């Protein structure tokens, strides 16, 4: 049984206030509770669902994915790469070599900085960061 003072702010944050009537009235606590539990059952990773990260793709990676920008979940580079491969399986052979190892010539930038100068694939990503994935450059 959840006190509405506990459930209300949590549900508010999750953006899921499926209360049928005015949730201020204690009589709706049960209704809220039911939805709250159902919500947890149906949305196992809802903590991450909040923070979709934008990742920009370039060159043949962009062509293979069919889009220049993807939105995925994940708090580290590793996690978002896994999500990207799940959503766009054709990218796997471009980005990884055998055994989920990142190909040496693939560049990943966070806000213009190569992750090799940060914590590699363990580098953390927030919603404010701009992530980019691309193959070797060939300008000039």
């Amino acid at each position, binding site marked *: 049984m959840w006190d509405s003072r506990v459930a209300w702010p949590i549900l508010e944050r999750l953006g899921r206030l499926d209360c049928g009537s005015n949730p201020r009235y204690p009589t709706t606590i049960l209704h809220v509770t039911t939805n709250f539990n159902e919500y947890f059952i149906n949305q196992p990773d809802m903590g991450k669902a909040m923070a979709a990260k934008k990742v*920009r793709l370039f*060159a043949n990676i*962009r062509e293979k994915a069919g889009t220049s920008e993807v939105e995925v979940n994940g708090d580290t580079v590793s996690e978002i790469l896994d999500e990207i491969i799940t959503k766009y399986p054709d990218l796997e052979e471009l980005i990884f070599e055998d055994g989920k190892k990142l190909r040496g010539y693939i560049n990943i*930038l966070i806000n*213009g900085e190569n992750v090799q100068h940060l914590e590699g694939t363990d580098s953390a990503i927030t919603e404010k960061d701009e992530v980019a994935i691309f193959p*070797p*450059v*060939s*300008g000039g």
Partner: protein
Amino acid sequence: MKAVAVIGYKNTGKTTFVCRLVEKLASKGKVGTVKIMHDHRFDSPEKDTGKHFDSGAENVTAVSEEGVVSIQRGAGLDEALEVLADRGMEYAIVEGATNSDLPKIMLGEMEEEAGNVVLRLAPCSDWDMDEVAGIVHQTSEFVTLNSMINKIRHIPEFPLTGSIGTFTGVVRGETDDISTKMLEFEKYESVADERIEKICNDLKQREGIIEVLIHHKSGRLMRGDDIVYIVVASAHRQELFKALSDAIERVKSEVPIWKKEVTMEGDFWVHDHA
């Protein structure tokens, strides 16, 4: 050079608008204008210049106390804009050019689709020229090699310059057995600009290097077209050539730009063959 086109049907006030914009921008930098004319002969066949032209001259130039008028056979808007950029104009305002890919200011409504309209205004109004100038400043630059050299000639440190060197990257048409039709360049704009600025600033730390300018085009470029311009100004020639050489090597290895080659046999991203 910022280049914009002012378009609209007759009597929408285009010429008045252009004149007001010229006045506003002239206080900030040199302004050039281009007027697109249809079915117009510049010099009647009775005039000397008309006779020169009809005799087969490619280019007839009339010089008077007022200035110079050059009639260039077969030239078009691109050449006209290049001339303005080469002469160091900071702004080019074109009256007309609905079908070009210049950023456009449209006066009134138009039935045809005009691409790249950056501002729509009512015809014959009391337009806010400060607002218009602001919009012009946000458009992308029209750059020529000569406009870059011109820019260097006007920097405060120019009197220290003893040599100017340039590098131009060009779309090669034939490589071994491969015939290239065109190249398509894709840029990670913000990061590419930062990396280019860093290359310029790093090179300027060197003894004797006074200024470094780099401009890399993007989009579709045909065989023979220019891809990248690098201009270096140095006090003495000794430091010049290495700076130019290092600049292009760094652009090629550090700047997030990708080249897709379109040949007779098919398309491929250049790094695939690396």
